[in-house]
């Protein structure tokens, strides 16, 4: 337990350092990039001092760590506001989108995976695995516009973009959730297939248990752990996919903030967004480990 916490802390420190280095080791001068080449030398010096870029690298690094640890993320150039405030405004939208996509993916993947395993080799299995293959290959920056075309422009069922009301959540959630559902369905299927080959399933069947409670009760319950671990691992992809999905639908979350900040060369905001998303990923994975350990008697004992 202590070793796991220490290891997570080390990874968090590493992730934070990498984000710091991201801006400092990249060739080119961020000040020049921000102000453009025609800027006056005096303006450059002022900005350099404001960013703290005139001090030695080690000092900047320690200052950055200290400030980040006390949740001081600095000031946005483009908005002239504290970065922490900007993030606080955007986090609920991203959280809503990510949760909706995750729920949708689970609702789709669990029945699909279980039924595919039950009817292995049948038409349903082929169909489910076809969906899985396709869903993993469809890029969400294409699925999004196609869904807009069909459901917003042709059918007029949903808003084209923005975040107003529940209807506006549908298309972004489907766009983001499909890829995850595809990967999960495949995992659920192979995981259930593995469990179905166990002796206790044969015993349960022999004592006359109904096929449905066998499948959904015994098999799915024991197939959960690898699926749970995969969800934790896939969450990083989900959060990164949110960046693209939010851009497609003009969804006012952390992802679209990141892209706006990159385009405006608003480095403190870029740094904070990357840090926030990465730390969320690290924490969720650590949490998944804990939940798995708690849920699995073999690991617990």
């Amino acid at each position: 337990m202590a070793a796991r916490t220490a290891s997570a802390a080390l990874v968090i420190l590493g992730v934070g350092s990498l984000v710091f280095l991201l801006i400092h080791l990249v060739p080119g001068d961020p000040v020049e990039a921000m102000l453009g080449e025609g800027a006056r030398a005096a303006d450059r010096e002022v900005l350099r001092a404001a960013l703290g870029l005139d001090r030695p690298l080690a000092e900047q690094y320690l200052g950055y760590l200290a400030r980040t640890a006390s949740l001081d993320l600095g000031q946005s150039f483009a908005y002239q506001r504290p970065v922490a405030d900007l993030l606080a405004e955007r986090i609920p939208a991203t959280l809503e989108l990510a949760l909706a996509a995750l729920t949708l993916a689970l609702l789709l993947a669990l029945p699909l995976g279980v039924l595919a395993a039950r009817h292995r080799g049948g038409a349903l299995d082929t169909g489910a695995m076809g969906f899985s293959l396709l869903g993993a290959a469809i890029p969400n920056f294409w699925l999004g516009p196609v869904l807009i075309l069909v459901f917003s422009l042709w059918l007029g069922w949903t808003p084209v973009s923005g975040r107003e009301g529940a209807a506006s959540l549908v298309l972004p959630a489907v766009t983001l959730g499909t890829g995850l559902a595809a990967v999960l369905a495949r995992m659920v299927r192979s995981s259930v297939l593995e469990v179905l080959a166990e002796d206790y399933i044969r015993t349960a069947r022999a004592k006359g248990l109904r096929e449905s409670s066998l499948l959904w009760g015994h098999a799915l319950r024991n197939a959960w752990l690898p699926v749970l671990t995969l969800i934790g691992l896939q969450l990083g992809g989900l959060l990164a996919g949110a960046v693209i999905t939010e851009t497609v639908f003009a969804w006012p979350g952390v992802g679209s903030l990141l892209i706006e900040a990159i385009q405006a060369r608003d480095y403190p905001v870029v740094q904070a967004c990357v840090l926030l998303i990465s730390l969320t990923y690290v924490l969720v994975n650590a949490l998944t480990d804990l939940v798995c350990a708690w849920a699995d008697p073999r690991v617990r004992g």
Partner: protein
Amino acid sequence: MSALRHGLPAGLLLLWLLAALVAPVLPLAPDRIDLTAILAPPGHGSLLGNDDLGRPVLDRLLAGARTSLLVGLGVVTVSLVIGVLVGGVAGLAGGWLDLVLVRLIDVFLAFPGILLAIALAGILGPGIDNLIIALAAVGWVGYARLVRAQVLSLKRRDHVAAARALGAGPARLLFRHLLPLALAPVLVEATFGVAAAVIAEAGLSFLGLGVQPPQASWGSMIRDGAAYLLVAPHLVLAPGVAVLLVVLSVNLLGDRLRDRIDVRSRP
């Protein structure tokens, strides 16, 4: 069914390769602006229609194939070189060097890779070379971990001990005696890596962080076309189908490769 599963992906990949290789010598005009053909639908002399500047979509699609192939192969090659070196050194050296490198790999794995690539590409600025740097900066980690694991499992074998006794240095051990045996799983990983790089390139270009306009990329075609979704859906549909088919084909090929190699490597 089998012909469909195996022949079609192979054919599509050949088409992709061919398009990318011969695009520069074909009489294509991906950058020719034709104001009389703005948003022209497919048909009428240009097979896939024209975009918002009147440029022929088919020509841009073929030019985009070159971009995606360059980035796909470039990213995988650079990632492979870094990954093999880091993983090989870590596995072979052991001790504190291994510990440090494993920690480094852990930190990179803790990042959602594409996010780091987005940030890197944004900071580096547009261009194919920067795109390859950004994607390889996150892509090497998987190969490093794989090669390290392979080296660790192989380095106790007798032929390695024999080579060492005969005075082979670490570089010779790695490249002559260890890597050839680790080639198969690395190759499978690299195949999936090409698909991932193609999607990532299109994604970054879609976000405006990829190639420099007017250079064609499937991702930036989707980005530009999205504004004309209702009047000219072909601008989004054509490049999207291209990405989808290429990624699907590469993945199917990777699956097949993995199945085949698994059979042989487990006697």
